[in-house]
Structure formats: C-alpha cells, structure tokens
C-alpha cells in the first residue's frame, strides 16, 4: 500500500519541479527577447548615427566636388577682383597726366591716352593678381568647411561610441541573467525535493514506528499536508511498508532501518 502522504508530497514536488522548469524556460526566453530588443534598438540607433555621418560626408564630398570647388574659386576671384579693381576704377589716371603744364593739345591728348591705357593695364594686372590670390581664399574656405564637417562627424562618432559602450554593458547583463534563469529551476526544484524528502521521512517514520518523531521532523515541511497522521497508520497497520520515493529512490523495508535506506 502506498503512503498517500509520500505520494502526495512527491507529486507536489514533481509538479513544482515541472513548474519551475517552465518558469526557467520562460525566464530564459524573456532574457533572450530582451537581448534581441536591445540589439535591435542599438542597431537602429547606430544606423541613425551612420546615416547622419553619411550625410555629413556627402556634404564634404560635395564641397570638394569640381563643381563646388569651381564655384568657390570663381567667387573668390570675383571677391578679390572687386577688391582690387574698385579703387582703380575710381581713380582718374588722366588727371595725373601733365596736361596742366602743356598748352599743346596734342601732348595733352597723348597723355590722356596714356593715362587711360595705363588704367586698363592696371585693372587687367589687378584682375590677374586676383586670380592668383583667390586660390588661397578658395582653398581656405573649403578647408574650413571640411573641418567643420569633420568636427560634426567626430562628435557623432563620439556619441555613437558612448552608446555602443552602453549597449555592450547592457549585453553583459544578459549572460548572468541567463545563468540565473537556468538556476531558477534549481531553486524551485529544491523546494520540490524538500517535499519529496519530507514524504520519504514520513514513510520511514511509519516503518520504524517512530512516526511521532518523524512527524515532528517532517511537519516542518509538510504538516499542513499531513494533518491526519497517516504515517502512524502506516506504521501500525501495514507490516510491509512500501516507501515510495521518487527523489531518493525506492525501497521495500521491513521494520526499522530498511525503509530508512530509502532516504539515502
């Protein structure tokens, strides 16, 4: 005859173990899902940073394109040309010619021609100089724009790296979480084991006639489950006490000692 307490306790332990196992699987799944979500979130964030940098790089490349460089150069030449020729355009070269001292109109006319010619030559010379000098302006402008873009990329990279490090730190959490989830079954399983052990102890107590003592011992774990003292009935009413134990193995025992072997 089976000991109902032991069977009940053992069943409860088995059920708890199964429950704990399912809980552990659930926890592991949850951790994996968290990990995947974090991965996805970080991937999206890094992609955003990459896109941002790609935009800045594209802007830099555009700035260095032949068209943009040509436009910048043209603008620089125009700026220098205007700066150089404006005062020359405003200057009256003819007025400096010595017509005041020369009553001869022919000489005055020649001097005026020389003055005008001189003005044209000077403006042409200034424009040529502007073209030469403008190269530095255009280069400087391009370099400053590139450096500003480089700063922007550097800042974005720095931010991205910090978030990547934070994500690595978060990823480092999942390994111990997984481990904890795997061991979570052990925790609940242990409770089941305790129930099982209590049942075995009850059975052993019945077999040895020491039910009261074992009841006291097992009641610590199973007193709510064993309120009717079935273990005593086992001890007196059953010469052959079948000790069922899923936790520690079973054993047929006659009297004292034999059923205790089942505990070990």
């Amino acid at each position, binding site marked *: 005859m089976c000991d109902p307490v032991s069977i009940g306790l053992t069943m409860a332990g088995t059920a708890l173990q199964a429950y704990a196992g399912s809980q552990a699987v659930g926890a592991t799944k949850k951790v994996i899902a968290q990990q995947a979500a974090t991965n996805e979130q970080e991937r999206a964030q890094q992609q955003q940073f990459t896109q941002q940098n790609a935009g800045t790089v594209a802007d830099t490349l555009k700035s260095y394109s032949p068209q943009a460089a040509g436009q910048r150069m043209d603008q620089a030449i125009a700026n220098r040309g205007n700066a150089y020729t404006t005062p020359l355009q405003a200057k009256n070269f003819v007025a400096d010619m*010595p017509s005041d001292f020369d009553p001869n109109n022919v*000489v005055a006319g020649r*001097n005026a021609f020389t003055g005008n010619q001189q003005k044209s030559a000077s403006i042409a010379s200034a424009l040529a100089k502007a073209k030469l000098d403008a190269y530095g302006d255009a280069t400087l402008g391009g370099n400053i724009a590139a450096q500003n873009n480089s700063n922007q990329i550097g800042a974005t990279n720095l931010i991205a790296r910090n978030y990547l490090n*934070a994500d690595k730190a978060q990823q480092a959490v999942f390994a111990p979480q997984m481990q904890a989830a795997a061991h979570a079954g052990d925790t609940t399983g242990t409770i089941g084991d305790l129930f099982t052990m209590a049942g075995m102890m009850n059975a052993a107590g019945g077999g040895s006639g020491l039910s009261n003592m074992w009841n006291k011992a097992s009641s610590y774990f199973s007193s709510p489950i064993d309120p009717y003292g079935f273990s005593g009935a086992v001890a007196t009413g059953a010469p052959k006490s079948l000790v069922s134990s899923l936790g520690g193995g079973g054993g047929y025992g006659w009297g004292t000692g034999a059923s205790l072997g089942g505990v070990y």
Partner: protein
Amino acid sequence: MCIFNSGAAIAKQQAQLAQGQANQAAADAAQKQQAITTGMTNINNAFAGFDQNYFDSLAKNYTDYATPQLQDQYNLQKKNIIYNLARGGNLGSSVYGDQMALLDKQNAQDMATIQGTGQDYANTAKQNVQSAKQNVVNQLNTTYDVAGTNTEALQQAQLMAATPSFSPLGSMFANVSALAAQNKLASQGYGAGMSGVAGPTGAGTGSFGYSVG
C-alpha cells in the same frame, strides 16, 4: 541536491551588478550626448560673430589704414618727379608723361597689393579663429565639460575679436624713385653733353656728362 542554491544567487547578484553598470553606462552616454550637443551649440554661438562680414570689415580696416599712407607716398613721389623735371626744364616733355604713367602704374599695383594684404589679414584671422574654435571643440570632446568649454570659447572669441596690429606701409615707390633718378641723370647727361660742345674742353659728346648740375 542543493538546498540553498548558491549558483542562482551568485548569477542573480552578477546580473544585478552588471545591470547597475549598464544603467550607469547608458546614463553616461545620454549625459555625454547632451554635453556634446549643448557644448557644440555654445561654441558655435561664441564664434558666431566671426562671419564673412566680420572678415570683410577686417580687410577693410587694413585698407583704410594703409591707403592714406600710400596716397601720401604717391603725392610725395609725384612732387619729386615734377621738381626734378622742372629743374631740367623737361616738365612739358613726354618724359613727364612717361614718369607719371610709371608712377600711376606702380600706384595701381600698390593699391591692389594693399587690398590683397587686407584680404590676407582676413584670411589669417579666419585661420586663427578656426584654430581656436577647433581647440575648444577638442577640449569638449575630451572633457565633456560644457561650462568650462563655454567659458573657454567666450574667452577665445574675445581674444580673436581684438583688432590685429597692422604693420606700417613700407616704401612703395622705391622702383619709381630709382627710375626717376636714372631718367634725371640721363636727361642731365644729355644736357651736359649738349653744353659740353661749347664747354671749356671743347670735348664731350654728351655721353660723358661731366658737368652735372
């Protein structure tokens, strides 16, 4: 059978510890992003005054400083040419026109040079401003110190905004003076040669020019 299940407890503790570190890292990353964003905005604001108008005005400051000096030198040189030619009696000659043309040509070149120097001052200032800005940006990226870099940016901007010291204009018509002197000598030599015909020596073709003055 493990009643107290120490493995699970340790793993849980490790997970909690790692989670704390991860939370800290995430908070740091967000804080650093905020620092960089705010810091860059502060730096850009501090240097915002250094736009193209500022550098154009800087170039104009130099031309305003140097042009009157050039004009003074031009007027002085013009007087010298007139006086020299007047002494030789060649004031109404074509030599005067040639020398004045030469003077004007040199003057035009000098005016362009002054404009160019003004632009160069502006470019140098641009480079200095960019360099100062870069230093502050680097400082921000290293320290993430928003307040410190903001103060540094404002100080640097103030330093950069100080008017640069311009070098005084050197002698701009040295070439014209030398040519004028050569022309003067040539005209005097020619005159001496002519007078040499009737000179006490009866010699001289004018190419010697011994009787200068």
